């Protein structure tokens, strides 16, 4: 018996990374800004997106959404009410989206042309751990956090918050009754991802949406 060491130096998620790089090139060529929204279950991703899609539509922008869900198509139906093209990705129990699911659902999406879109939003499965390892080819990763779930979320999930390009604090209409400590939340986000843009919004009242939409427009141009 002899022993042999074989050097591999291969990324464990190499396949996903390569697929994601292909998607990114495709999105860029089509001139579509792609965002990947990640948060815990119930943070308000769908509500935030509903509002975003409606307001973009009012501005004459063309946006679409892909929405990941473990079992149901409830979120897709809610989002489709905005009038935007929406497609459901049912992961059948898998706790995150991956690049292959995105590619598959884009290809089989009847009537959708990336060239005709300004923005594509991807609502990930509600989970703060697993989605952070899977590149979907997005240009902007958005981490969301609601005023009801504790100011220390960024400290508990640094893997996700550090990988994000922007953060959104949701449900600020109920910040006060929840005893939400805004300064502490902002400080924690800053400690994990210095310099990250933070938006404070309410899907219910529309507060903070203006700054968010301005950011989208700026990123779309940039």
């Amino acid at each position, binding site marked *: 018996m002899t022993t042999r060491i074989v050097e591999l130096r291969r990324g464990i998620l190499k396949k996903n990374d390569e697929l994601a790089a292909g998607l990114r090139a495709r999105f860029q060529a089509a001139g579509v800004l792609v965002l990947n929204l990640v948060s815990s279950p119930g943070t308000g991703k769908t509500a935030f997106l509903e509002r975003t899609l409606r307001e973009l539509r009012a501005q004459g922008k063309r946006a679409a959404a892909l929405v990941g869900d473990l079992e149901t198509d409830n979120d897709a139906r809610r989002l489709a009410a905005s009038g935007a093209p929406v497609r459901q990705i049912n992961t059948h129990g898998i706790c995150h989206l991956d690049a292959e699911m995105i590619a598959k659902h884009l290809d089989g999406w009847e009537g959708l042309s990336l060239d005709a879109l300004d923005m594509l939003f991807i609502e990930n499965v509600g989970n703060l751990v697993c989605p952070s390892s899977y590149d979907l080819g997005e240009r902007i990763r958005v981490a969301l956090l609601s005023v009801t779930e504790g100011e220390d979320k960024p400290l508990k999930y640094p893997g996700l918050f550090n990988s994000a390009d922007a953060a959104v604090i949701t449900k600020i209409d109920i910040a006060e009754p929840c005893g939400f400590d805004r300064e502490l939340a902002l400080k924690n986000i800053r400690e*994990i991802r*210095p310099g990250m843009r933070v938006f404070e919004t309410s899907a219910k009242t529309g507060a903070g949406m203006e700054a968010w939409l301005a950011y989208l427009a700026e990123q779309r141009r940039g």
Partner: protein
Amino acid sequence: MHELSIAASIVESVSEAAAAYPGARVKEVRLRVGALASVVEDALRFCWELATEETPLRGAALAIETLPVILHCEDCGAESAIETVQSFRCPRCGALAADLRQGREMEIASIELEEPEPSAAAPAST
């Protein structure tokens, strides 16, 4: 829990690489995993056993090297490892630092094979 998908990806890559060495048994798989990679070591070990159970990799050990986060500081130019991932500050000057130089890796570094006898010809690498 995405450790099962991760374990399955490792099994796939390692099986592919080991196929170039007929008759060899994989003794150990060595990983390099960044502290920010969102991989839970215990969960991965558990899933590794499940994922290898019915494969030729059954019984192969998993060695996991954890890589600390290394930050580059714009303020003082230092490049240093931080001890926790609760605060991304330069250990030398205390400034917040966003420039990550290490910490997200998820890599199969190498595999250790046990071969019946020294093979004469070097097999083609993949």
